[in-house]
């Protein structure tokens, strides 16, 4: 059973990552709406992201915020709807977070590198 302290940190992490996501999602949506005007191509996207430190930083932040937020959110869902508890719950949640970070950053590298 996670300690009270750990629980407070999880809750705080969920709130903080939500704030970060609020900004990231807005920026992402505006960018997409702007980018989609007059059609969209891979070359056009890559033209914008390749070698850009700014986009790399932005999307890396987005990935990290998503990894934290989705993992903690899934934690509640798994325990409330499937009754998963204790060590199994912790293991699954950490795994999900890790997968999201790895695949997310890999995707960022793919469009930036």
């Amino acid at each position, binding site marked *: *059973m*996670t*300690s*009270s*302290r750990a*629980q*407070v*940190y*999880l*809750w*705080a992490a969920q709130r903080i990552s939500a704030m970060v996501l609020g900004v990231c999602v807005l920026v992402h949506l505006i960018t997409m709406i702007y980018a989609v005007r007059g059609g969209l191509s891979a070359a056009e996207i890559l033209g914008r992201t390749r070698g850009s430190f700014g986009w790399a930083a932005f999307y890396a932040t987005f990935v990290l915020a998503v990894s934290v937020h989705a993992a903690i959110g899934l934690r*509640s869902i798994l*325990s*409330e*709807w499937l009754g998963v508890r204790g060590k199994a719950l912790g293991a699954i949640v950490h795994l999900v977070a890790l997968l999201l970070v790895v695949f997310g950053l890999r995707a960022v590298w793919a469009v930036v590198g």
Partner: protein
Amino acid sequence: MSTLEVKVWRGGERGEFQRFEVPRLESQTVLDVVTYIQRHLDPTLSYRFACRVGMCGSCAMVVNGRARWTCRTHVAEVDDSDTLEIAPLRHLPVIKDLVTDMSTFFDKWAAARGQFHATATRKDDFARVAPETPQRQQVDAGIECIGCGVCYSSCDVVGWNPDYLGPAAMNRAWTLINDVRDGAHDERLAAVAGDAGCHACHTHMSCAERCPKHISPTAAIAGLKRATLSAVLKGKL
């Protein structure tokens, strides 16, 4: 005279709804209906009530899907299709018919440290607590809870997580956290933090919506979330 069709839960956890036909009367409450059934139609029906004037909370039951005080629920305001469905409070073991075992509800109250811990003795002067202080206003907003169980019955998280302390227990904890005379603040915050405590609340607000005393346990739980974070940041938790 028109009649009302009433379905009443009979049995324990397993059971079924039994149908009765009850004469419709003006200003009739749901408690009047249950009482009529027990007195005139089926004396084996078990149910709880005491004051019958909206003070004690004993008569809380689920009427057409919503938990409420049956003595304060006019039949006319529940439903206009002439059918009433009366069931026991949710999320509590059913002893018989409309009577539930409230032990878990009160055990969780104790687990949330819902008891006042005195710091003064009879030798000390009276504590002075100004009613206008923000802390006392927080207490006053939630102090009228009489432990009826309507909020507990209405809470989704209570249904999904058997360990969840529930809105009433945490509302009481919040009133004590804000009580300047109480001496167990740190232990109480530790008791209400976590998966079984305030952090499991999803702010659905069914408790606040259904509370017959118009208390908002959700607001109290939000306060506990802030207080536990503050305690961790200060190294007290």
